[in-house]
């Protein structure tokens, strides 16, 4: 699934002048990673590198329904069903119906290759609101190369049609990177022709798989600048027809992003194996241990677990963040990125110009300006097992070979 959940769920807390609803302490949004199984092998997947170790121990239907009920009681308003490929769960309509019954707005993020017309109608009847389809590129060859699955492009086109025919609201999500950024016009045109109401163009976030494959994914500055211009012209041209969100890579921003509006503040993720995380990438922070819904209820986890309290608020912030006027804006940036690039989850996000570790970002950007061919890894169980346990900083991967698709 696209690795941009934080950016995609905008929390707009003031339609008018309101007290800051975020500070009331209740989460808004729950990401349900219902499985780590997936027929696609996208090299920027937001699942943890070691997902293969958590493939067998998925929460069952009753456990998910209990999680959804506890989430609703905790103030969650939206449930995003994602994966892996959530359509691999035969009980997905049942889970969506439960979310709907508890008053949650249900969204689905899917690769789409397994959708049938019958399933689309059953999801709609269960109360599904948003249907978000991921695409990899504008052309079949390059899209299927990135996805590591032959025939996936045409299946996605069919899925878009079936979702719309069933009355679902179609959004298209694209992870942008070095290999597809120059086709951004074609990608926008494709989303228009497939009838999307919303297009999310989010540059890859370099945690987990994307960090491992960073040399293959990180675009040049010229690519990013050109794509930003194209996106902003398209936003104007399509206003009221198709909403376009464009998220630049934080490597090219001066300050870090306000990751998830702050740790443990608005979002939580429940993973396929029941692990509860402030963000789906947080499993990579091996210096923290995360609670599990099989052992505790969601309310206790949210309010009392050490992992959720560790970086909540701003009291824990180190310098230069603690005295920075932006500390209530970005909360020190992304904890996962801080951990993966510095070894300390409590450090200032190196994406910030003021971080003492910012040279790590600058070195990667300098490397991105060189033209050499690099190798990279598909996201599949074989690579997952090979890579998990090794340091996450970009290492020399093997030559990328997709696993055969059944």
């Amino acid at each position, binding site marked *: 699934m696209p690795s941009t959940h934080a950016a995609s769920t905008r929390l707009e807390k003031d*339609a*008018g002048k309101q007290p800051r609803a975020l500070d009331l302490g209740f989460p808004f949004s729950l990401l349900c990673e219902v499985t780590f199984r997936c027929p696609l092998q996208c090299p920027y997947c937001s699942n943890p590198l070691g997902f293969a170790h958590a493939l067998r121990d998925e929460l069952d239907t009753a456990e998910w329904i209990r999680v959804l009920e506890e989430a609703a009681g905790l103030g969650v308003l939206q449930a995003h069903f994602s994966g892996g490929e959530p359509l691999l769960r035969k009980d997905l309509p049942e889970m969506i119906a439960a979310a709907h019954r508890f008053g949650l*707005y249900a969204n689905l993020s899917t690769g789409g290759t397994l959708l049938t017309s019958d399933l689309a109608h059953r999801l709609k009847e269960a109360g599904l609101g*948003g249907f978000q389809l991921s695409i990899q590129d504008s052309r079949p060859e390059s899209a299927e190369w990135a996805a590591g699955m032959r025939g996936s492009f045409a299946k996605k086109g069919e899925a878009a049609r079936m979702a719309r025919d069933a009355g679902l609201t179609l959004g298209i999500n694209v992870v942008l990177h070095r290999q597809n950024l120059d086709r951004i016009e074609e990608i926008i045109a494709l989303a228009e022709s497939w009838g999307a109401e919303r297009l999310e163009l989010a540059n890859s976030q370099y945690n987990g798989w994307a960090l491992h494959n960073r040399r293959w994914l990180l675009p040049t500055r010229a690519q990013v600048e050109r794509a930003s211009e194209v996106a902003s012209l398209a936003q104007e041209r399509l*206003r009221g027809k198709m909403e376009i969100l464009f998220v630049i890579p934080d490597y090219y921003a001066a300050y870090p992003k306000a990751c998830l509006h702050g740790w443990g503040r608005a979002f939580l993720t429940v993973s396929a194996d029941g692990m509860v995380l402030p963000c789906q990438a947080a499993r990579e922070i091996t210096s923290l241990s995360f609670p599990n819904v099989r052992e505790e209820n969601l309310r206790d986890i949210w309010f009392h677990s050490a992992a959720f309290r560790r970086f909540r608020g701003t009291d824990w912030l180190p310098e230069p963040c603690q005295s920075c006027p932006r500390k209530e804006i970005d909360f020190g940036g992304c904890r996962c990125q801080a951990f993966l690039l510095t070894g300390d989850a409590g450090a200032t996000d190196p994406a910030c110009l003021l971080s003492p570790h910012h040279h790590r970002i600058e070195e990667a950007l300098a490397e991105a300006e060189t033209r050499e061919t690099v190798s990279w890894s598909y996201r599949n169980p074989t690579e997952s097992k090979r890579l998990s346990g090794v340091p996450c900083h970009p290492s020399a991967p093997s030559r990328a070979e997709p696993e055969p698709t059944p």
Partner: protein
Amino acid sequence: MDADLRAPRIASKASLRWDAVRQKPILLYPEGVLILNPSAEAILSLCDGRRPVSEIVSELASRYGGDPVALETDVWNFLQELLDRGLLLCPDPKEK
């Protein structure tokens, strides 16, 4: 204003609700949520697809008082933001 004949309604992908945990009215949609203040809620609850904007404005003016011209500008600014984002639909009556 010709546009005032159009009768806005909330798009089917969005849902106007009461949030029991936060004790506030909200508008939920696929990518997020708007927590509404009392005036935003008053406007949206009148967007039923039958009332034209002119009637929404006069209803609000009679409920809350204030300058109707300024009120109309405020209402339009709010509606236009939601229209741009596809959360509100405003079919042109002449197209039917």
